Each structure stands twice: as C-alpha cells, then as structure tokens.
C-alpha cells in the first residue's frame, strides 16, 4: 500500500498555487517588498493583497510598513511558524515522490502482489487553487 500520510501533511493555506509561490519567494529571503513580489509573480495588486491577507491571518507572514521618501512601502517576511509549515510542505512533497518511486519499484518486483497502484486523493488536493 502507498502511505497516504504525506498527503495529509500538505498545508491547505499554502497549497494554493499563488500562495505557495509567495511563500517560496519569502522562504529564500529575510523580507521582500510588495512591489518586488508583484514583479516576480505577475499578479495584480488586488490578487496579491488577498493572498497576503490570507497568509497574515494564518500567522505565516508578517508585514513591515515604512516610507521611502513619500511612498509607502510594505515588506513581508515569513514568521517562524510560516517557515516551519513551508519546510513541512516541502518534506511532504518529497515524501510523495519517494513513496511513489518506492511503490513503482515494489510493483516492478512483484506485479501480482500490487494489482492497483491508484490511491484515493485526499480532500486537500481537490480544492481549487
């Protein structure tokens, strides 16, 4: 049997593709400005704002507001909790890949013992991005 535990580890908040991209960018740095995130991801201001608010409310992201001259500037950073959740997400993806490769390996060695490689997809993976 394929171990389904890694699927359950996929966090619902960052599994959405836009938010996963944001968290990936934030994970490599201390903090990133809103304008820089927008440039990297090609999102509209509104779309990015909604994602940032969701991540803030989940406690994964913290915002630092300041002024550059007269222009307001918002910089975002991952919280320790957000970083942990992202690391777990990566580990879950790696586990899925590993599990799948191991299942394929077992199937090749003994096809009759594993007649069905299909697994039920957890609800978290079926939610729209």
């Amino acid at each position: 049997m394929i171990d389904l535990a890694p699927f359950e580890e996929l966090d619902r908040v960052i599994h959405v593709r836009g938010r996963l991209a944001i968290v990936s960018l934030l994970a490599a740095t201390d903090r990133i400005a809103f304008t820089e995130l927008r440039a990297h991801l090609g999102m509209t201001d509104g779309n990015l704002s909604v994602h940032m608010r969701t991540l803030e409310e989940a406690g994964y992201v913290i915002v630092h507001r300041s002024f550059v001259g007269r222009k307001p500037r918002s910089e975002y950073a991952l919280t320790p909790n957000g970083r942990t959740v992202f690391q777990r997400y990566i580990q879950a993806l790696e586990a899925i890949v590993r599990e799948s490769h191991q299942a394929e390996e077992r199937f090749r060695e003994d096809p009759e013992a594993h007649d069905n490689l299909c697994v039920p997809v957890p609800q978290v993976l079926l939610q729209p991005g």
Partner: protein
Amino acid sequence: MTTREAEETLGVIRTLMERSTHYRNLSGNAGIAAGTAALVGGALRHWAHTPFYPTWMAVLLFACGASLYFTGEMARAGGEPVWSRQAQTIVAALLPAFVAAGVLTVILERTGLRALLPGVWMLLWGVAALAMSFFTPRVVGLLGGAFLVAGSLTLLAGSGTWSDAACMAATFGLMHLAYGFVLIVLRPRRAMMDKGSSNDRSRAF
C-alpha cells in the same frame, strides 16, 4: 497530485527561491557611463599624457558614481530602497576583489611593477563580476569571463606589450559599452519574460 506534479512543484519552488535573491536594478546606462569614462581616460593617457594614477582613479570614481546614480534611480523608480537586501549582497560579492585590487596596486607600485596593474585590475574585476553573477542576469557572468580572459592574456603577454591606455580602453572601455548596450536591449525583453514565466510558474502549480 501525481508524482510528476509533485516533482514539478518542487522544481518550481526551487526556481522561485533562486530568483528571489537576484538583483534586478543593474543599469545599462551605468555600463555605458563606465565604458565612456574608460575610453576618455585611455584617450587622455595616450594623447595628453595625463598621469597614470590620477587618470585611472578619476575613471574609477566616475564609474562608481555613475553606477550608484543610475542604480539608485532604477530602485527609486521601482519604489525600492537603494540599499536593498539584494544591493547589500552585490556589494558583499564585489568587496573581496576590490580589496585585493587595492592591496595589489600598492604592492606592485612599491616593487616597480606598475606595468602589470592593468592586467591585474582586469583579472580582479573579472573575479568581482563573476562573484556578482550569482545574483544578477547572465550577461554579468559573460562580462566577468571576458575580463578574466583579457586579464590573463594581458599578464601572460608580459608587461609593456600593450600600453595601459590601449588595454584599459579596449577592456574597461569597449567591454563595458557592450555590456551596457546588452543590458538596455535585454531589459524590456526580460520584463516581458519575467511576466510570462510567472504565468508559466502559476500554471505549473
């Protein structure tokens, strides 16, 4: 989520993490200003016989000043601080080669080997550009490689083979002009590609 999707997602995450450390405010105008300054310096050294150090120090100061001005202008236009996280990374990458160049300049001058300086400066600017290239567009790595080759050839040819005016104008002058033009041509394309690849990445999730 299939295995392939999980693998693709991991690849996209890796790419995004790498891209977020890249510096986006390199200015083609700064390259053109630095190249022009080196050409003027070479011309002054060749025809007006201006003194060695004041000429090249003036070129260096002008090039640094122009880089700061144009880079700052780009950062401000994008609503970013001039002394950003990425800018600090770039300076940290440049600094060791600049310190080495300063120390070697003093030592070679003291030992009467001033003729080697243009080759040493090329070599170390090549090292600096290559260090910077980990956080910048690919053209910076090409510039670094070109300087590394030019510096090596100049030093291997031996002191006095070419005048400092010719060496500096041909490398710091023409190569920076080419670099500046490439950056100016690439910027609009790069902005479009950034937007396109962002959409590709979103689809990949």
